[in-house]
């Protein structure tokens, strides 16, 4: 498989809606 790793996830707001079956991304999530 391809793997989207943690360097590429840095500073993104990553949202797991497991029950809703969707994954969200937003930029500049840490600041």
């Amino acid at each position, binding site marked *: 498989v*391809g*793997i*989207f*790793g943690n360097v590429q996830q840095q500073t993104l707001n990553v949202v*797991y809606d497991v029950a809703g079956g*969707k*994954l969200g991304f937003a930029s500049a999530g*840490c600041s």
Partner: protein
Amino acid sequence: DESTLKNHFHTIQISSLLPASVCSPSTKDHSKGASLKVVHKHGPCSHLSKEKANAATVTQILTRDESRVNSIQSRLSFNLVQKNTLKNSKASIPAKSGSSIGSGNYIVTIGLGTPKKDLSLIFDTGSDFTWTQCEPCARYCYSQQDPTFDPSLSKTYKNITCNSAQCSALGSATSASPGCATTTCVYGIQYGDSSYSVGFFGSETLTLTPSDIFPNFLFGCGQNNRGLFGASAGLIGLGRDSLSIVSQTASKYGKFFSYCLPSRSSSDGYLAFGKEGTSGALKFTPLLSNSQNPSFYFIDITGIKVGGTTLSISQSVFKTAGAIIDSGTVITRLPPAAYTPLRTAFRQQMKQYPMAQALSILDTCYDLSKYSTVSIPKISFLFGGNVEVPLAANGILYAGSASQVCLAFAGNSAASD
């Protein structure tokens, strides 16, 4: 021209890619939901980083990352169970190959027991089972920064019995059949790099925040623990299994969580449970599942943009083996037919900078020691649902030093990986 440079390139200071020496905590308020601070294990915001003598080098981090990826690839290729035996364990439990710990780069602190004891655990969306080292460390505990959890000092610790449904649930969460010591259920989890934890399966009060308290949280109380866990107290599993923290807190949070991983040289991030406080600027892509590999969070990568141009990559390249998102893998891995055009386009747009020798698995590196700022092409990932996610500059480059700054991607060895 100037417009192209602004729209399609990051202009960054080289120093921002190198480890910082001072912690600058985030000013963002995440206090609305159940929010935990996330720090980089080797960064200045982590109390674990004080053990500098034992800190992994960049090469070690990348080597361990390759070990983790190899074990994930192995699990997903439906290979037969590796009948490894934990020979040194009191309870000998056959174990499948799990995900390697890798470098376990991010840490969260949770509270366990009554009274509550704070424990810093590796943060991992690629595994399911939560465990911590426990006194009396009957066989072996590695050195950790926090005091080791002692269930005998807690009013709320309970052992789980062998004939319980919870004990039976261990098999899928740990990829190993549970054992039994007198009447107490014994877990064993072995990771792809041979790290492992064996101990008693227990329940305890879990405290995320003062108002987010979960009695009877099921976890591993480790009595024999060895491997690449650094100075952490154990691991917190955020996968999909029924024993993961996501599933065990579902009644309150509805299997909804979010995080922001801080860049290595900046400050802190967060891990939040529940929908409260979620940003409105989110772009959503389908979160996929695979019945044969139910722990992992599968995603649909559809393309990659470099410097504003979508690379010419057939959709079948990404579909052949699929993709997952994993907080414990450091470097993004791509099928060869996606990595090669990415590397070619990146090198073409970085041709004004002198190249340097490869850094472990990273084959596109630059000597930027003579520059204070550089312009690098922006990279975006395209996901199913027509979602474009631009990566931060820190998500594009990985620096060993100013003289060895590398494209932070690697190719799989085969299209079917």
